[in-house]
Every structure is written in structure tokens, then in C-alpha cells.
């Protein structure tokens, strides 16, 4: 459990970095790192399939989407970056205070175990997941298919180059 704690601390730190990072590129890379940390955590919590998805889709595909979006829009000049960074910091330092307050409140109200014990691993998570996904939750799979189709329309319509008219 101590390792889980370290991973989660690392994840929150990465998320914070993603918000405060100087450039958008660094921000999206920090987000990918947070995703990877979450994937590791999911893996340690007996969820290897979800971990693979988190790693490949969230840390991989979404980062690719972010970076290609960033590269399609014009980058700022270094002066602009510096000016915006200063302005950002002015708007974002209350976040650090807020996080500290939330932490204090949580620590006061809850008692944290220094080192909790993981529940015993269930017998065959993989087989159970497969059964659930393909038999009990077909509706969600169907939904995923429709959603992907809608996504295709979105990409086709929105990414299309503008007519020169």
C-alpha cells in the first residue's frame, strides 16, 4: 500500500504540473505521465486490462491528439510564453492554497492508515472481466461502437480544411 501511496502522490504532482506547466506541450506530456501513473496504479489493483487501456488510449492516443492539436495551432513566441506564464501564475497560486486547505480538512476529518492492507486477489479477474464485458455488459459495448461512429463524424466534419471562399 505504501507503493500505491507513492504512485498516487506522484500522479497528483504530475496533474499539478500539467496545469501549471509553462507551455501546452509540457502540460500534455505531464498529463501523459499522470495517465501512466494511473495505469500503474490500476495494474497494481488487479485491473490489468483497464491498465492497458489507460496506458495505450489515455497516455498514448489522447496525448497524440493533444500534441497534434497544439502543433496545428501557431506556437507562441518566447516573450509571449513568458508573459502568459507570469499571468497564469497569478491566477493559479490560489490553487496551491486550495489544495493545502483540502488536504488539511481531509486529514482532520479522516484517519489515514499508515499502511493499509490490500484485499485478497479474486480468483480469476481476467476470465471474469471477459465474461462481464461480453455477456453482462453488451449494452456498453454497443454504446462504444455507436460512440466511435459519432466520433468519426465529428472528426470528418470538424477537421475538414476550410474552403478558400
Amino acid at each position, binding site marked *: 500500500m505504501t507503493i500505491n501511496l507513492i504512485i498516487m502522490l506522484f500522479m497528483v504532482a504530475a496533474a499539478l504540473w500539467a496545469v501549471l506547466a509553462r507551455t501546452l506541450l509540457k502540460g500534455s506530456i505531464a498529463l501523459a505521465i499522470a495517465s501512466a501513473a494511473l495505469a500503474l496504479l490500476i495494474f497494481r489493483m488487479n*485491473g490489468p486490462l483497464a491498465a492497458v487501456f*489507460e496506458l495505450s488510449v489515455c497516455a498514448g492516443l489522447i496525448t497524440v491528439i493533444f500534441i497534434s492539436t497544439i502543433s496545428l495551432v501557431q506556437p507562441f513566441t518566447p516573450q509571449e510564453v513568458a508573459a502568459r506564464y507570469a499571468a497564469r501564475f497569478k491566477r493559479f497560486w490560489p490553487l496551491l492554497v486550495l489544495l493545502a486547505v483540502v488536504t488539511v480538512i481531509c486529514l482532520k476529518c479522516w*484517519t489515514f492508515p499508515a499502511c493499509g492492507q490490500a484485499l485478497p486477489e479474486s480468483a480469476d479477474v481476467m476470465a471474469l472481466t471477459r465474461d462481464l464485458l461480453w455477456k453482462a455488459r453488451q449494452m456498453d459495448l454497443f454504446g462504444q461502437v455507436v460512440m466511435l461512429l459519432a466520433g468519426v463524424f465529428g472528426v470528418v466534419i470538424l477537421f475538414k480544411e476550410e474552403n478558400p471562399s
Partner: protein
Amino acid sequence: MNGEFSSLVPFFGFFAILLFVIGLYCVVMSRNFIRVLIGLEILTKGVTLLIIAAGYLTGKVALAQTLAITLIVLEVVVVAVAAGIVIAVYRRNNSLDVTQLRKLKG
């Protein structure tokens, strides 16, 4: 509910709350479309963590895992559509400043 169970809930809940606070703050305060999306992603990370933790703590990892997989697939579609909107905005406006748009209307 045994003692061990109840003491583990805050452990994950605390970090999920931290992620929610960071993500929401980023969504509300950011001026750049892409940074707003990063905030949304952090929010979703918190949700994923919460779902997996819920499954882990109730011994229903398999169920939580299936839910998380669906959530991740839907999430990527939303992000792709959002990115499409961002690029289209940029092509129209040559700017990604949220405030420039919000000034137009009250």
C-alpha cells in the same frame, strides 16, 4: 463494513478529491482552450481512479474494470471531438483565448 474497509475509503477518496480540485480549477480559470481540455482530462482521471478503487474495495474488480474500459473509450471520443472544435475555432479566429470569445456575449 469492517474497519479495514472504512479506513481505506478515504485513502483513495482523498486523492480523487485532490484531482477533482486541480481539474475543476483548471477548467474554470484557464484562458486557453487546450488547457481547459487538460483540466477535463484530470477530472476524468479522478473519476477513473474512483471507479477502480470502488471495485477494488468491494471485491468487484472485474466489474470496475469493464466500466473503466468503456469510460476510457468514450473519453477519447469526447477529447477528439473537442480537439476538432478547438482546431476549427483556431482556423476561424486565429486565437485560442477563451476570454476573447466570452467577451462577445454577456
